[in-house]
């Protein structure tokens, strides 16, 4: 028996909507089996993962907080990936943005003005963009592969932050612990809604997603990104410059990662510390692809991934399953979502031996 794919004449609208549902169902079945094997009640487990975090207001806020950086970074990355620029160093750009934006509340902490917060955000955007500018410059002008340079710069950014918070930026009143002074209230990103602690970082994420969606769909720039991404040659015939596109997409994604960084620091942490991100920059890569590189899809994907983190904690408490089980479960979910997306473009046929006999359409 083997599996063959047959290209659909056009993208299936039905399966565009249905494939995530099938994936979810498969995850529930396989996840349920896994929990059964571990001796846990699968229904309780799945409830903790997918529903419990949605049942309370505070938990919905936490969902938004967790999803915000993933969406913001993921949206920027989608532009990069669509134009064939493989920026995998968003984690470093996130940190660079956080550092640049924190100059005001950490170094010029005595300056209290309504201007502080907007300037911080601006600096964050600039910091992220400049840091992404390094691999952009190296790729555009020195022909250096951006996958390597952007990844290596992540480690550099992490170590630089580490040095800052243990050295020059250390809080003088903090018993020499590695963290900066806490931000003054004028430097704190306000909450969006009165009912909880979701800050404006989530607002930025949604705004960015809508803006990039609009750009990709209705502007010449969006067309240029798509064309250059599909074929550099075709793009050149159309008069587009792939060098300029390297700069544009890298700077844009860097800027959004930087904005995510400063929003996270200003909105949620309110100080710099040696580690400010549990790998948002890398998780956002998955989010970007789970959302099929479509900004609105990325919003959904970011929320779903955030849900599994929250659900994992809920399951640890309600079932006593370890945190590793959560990661396995996340892996399962990702695998099913990715494989079910095949149905959008292809019909899947099960072929028995070499005879092209009974073909079954659909899933399994």
């Amino acid at each position, binding site marked *: 028996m083997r599996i063959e794919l047959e290209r659909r004449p056009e993208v299936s609208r039905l399966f565009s909507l249905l494939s995530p549902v099938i994936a979810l169902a498969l995850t529930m079945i396989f996840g349920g089996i896994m929990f059964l094997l571990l001796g846990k009640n699968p*229904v309780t487990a799945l*409830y903790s993962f997918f529903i419990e975090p949605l049942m309370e207001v505070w938990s919905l806020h936490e969902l938004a907080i967790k999803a915000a950086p993933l969406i913001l970074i993921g949206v920027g990355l989608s532009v990069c990936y669509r134009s064939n620029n493989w920026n995998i160093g968003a984690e470093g750009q996130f940190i660079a943005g956080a550092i640049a934006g924190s100059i005001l509340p950490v170094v010029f902490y005595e300056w209290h003005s309504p201007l502080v917060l907007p300037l911080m955000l601006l600096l964050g955007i600039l910091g992220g963009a400049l840091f992404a500018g390094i691999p952009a410059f190296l790729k555009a002008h020195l022909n250096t592969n951006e996958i390597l340079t952007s990844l290596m710069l992540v480690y550099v950014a992490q170590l630089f932050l580490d040095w800052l918070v243990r*050295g020059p930026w250390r809080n003088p009143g903090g018993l*020499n612990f590695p963290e900066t002074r806490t931000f003054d209230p004028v430097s704190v990103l306000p909450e969006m809604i009165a009912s909880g602690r979701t800050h404006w970082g989530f607002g930025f994420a949604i705004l960015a997603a809508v803006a990039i969606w609009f750009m990709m769909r209705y502007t010449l720039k969006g067309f240029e990104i798509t064309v250059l991404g599909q074929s550099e040659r075709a793009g050149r015939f159309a008069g587009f410059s792939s060098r300029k596109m390297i700069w544009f997409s890298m700077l844009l994604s860097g800027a959004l990662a930087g904005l995510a960084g400063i929003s996270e620091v200003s909105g949620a942490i309110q100080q710099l510390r040696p580690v400010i991100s549990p790998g948002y920059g890398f998780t956002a890569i998955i989010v970007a692809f789970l959302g099929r590189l479509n900004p609105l899809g990325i919003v959904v994907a970011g929320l779903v991934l955030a849900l599994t983190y929250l659900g994992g904690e809920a399951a640890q408490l309600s079932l006593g399953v370890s945190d590793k089980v959560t990661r396995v479960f996340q892996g399962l979910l990702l695998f099913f979502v990715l494989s079910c997306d095949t149905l959008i473009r292809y019909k899947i046929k099960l072929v028995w031996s070499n005879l092209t006999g009974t073909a079954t359409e659909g899933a399994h």
Partner: protein
Amino acid sequence: MKKILFALATTAAVIGFSAAASAADKAKVCFVYVGSKTDGGWTQAHDLGRQELEKALGDKVETQFLENVPEGPDAERAIERLARSGCGLIFTTSFGFMDATVKIAAKFPDVKFEHATGYKTAPNLATYNSRFYEGRYIQGQIAAKISQKGIAGYIASFPIPEVVMGINSFVTGARTINPDFKIKVVWANTWFDPGKEADAAKALIDQGVDVLTQHTDTTAPMQVAAERGIKAFGQASDMIKAGPQTQLTAIVDTWGAYYIKRTQAFLDGKWETTSSWDGLKDGILTMAPYTNMPDDVKALAEATEAKIRSGELKPFTGPLKKQDGSEWLKAGESSDDGTLLGMNFYVEGVDDKLPQ
């Protein structure tokens, strides 16, 4: 779709059931871990403490924990989740959870919080810590006796006061035996990377140290020391299995004593906020058996341990000089806790420059 609807319906039925089942009459004591409970180091020591607590007070308390919780907003969420799920007493076991614990403690005044190794307290938030440096002083004395070359290697994690304090205590102890004793420090910039810790151990041994100690969490340096035939000290847990012929002793974190004491106070309604900093005498750290050393060294170590327990000996007692030769403590003067908790200078004898 039908399947999902069905699942939803069954789950709805189960919620009612499980909510009823968990409404037992035990107090809930909860823990937030920064690592995995089987990391073989810091978090595992806390989890052993939690298990001891269950063993001691299991008929009155139920424990829960969340592991691998990243510092920052994730910690805030994890702590809030525990507070909301009915935990009466919550231990947050990493320095990086400090501000998250402070925020949530303010939000839930009826829940008691305890934060390890931090310095911010509130009426419902206590801090606790262990005087690890007492053990390091003993290690220093052993090292000075054992070392032929008078030079020890020290694998450090990050330059925070606790680690600096450990280095200084080790050197101070060693110099009571050999006034010219020196140590070389390598900062691994990680708590947990066996490969890198092993590399650091090899680098130190290749540069001529003949006794090794570590302030990182895996047994990799112990294994390297065993392979190269030098002696070493364990960290956080008894690492004798990794070096049966190698380990001299180890500082073993035994948080259980503290967890039982505080939970009992909580059950009795006598819990009050404190900043407790317990040491060898309180049982919050213990020394693994003194092995692989001559009897006179063992006797010396035991004597020093007894003196520290009785309070007769305080490791940081003058005359002591800072690394630059300036005076820190006059003869007979002991350091106050405040200086130790914010320690960011070396004493004489450390062959390293402290990142400022």
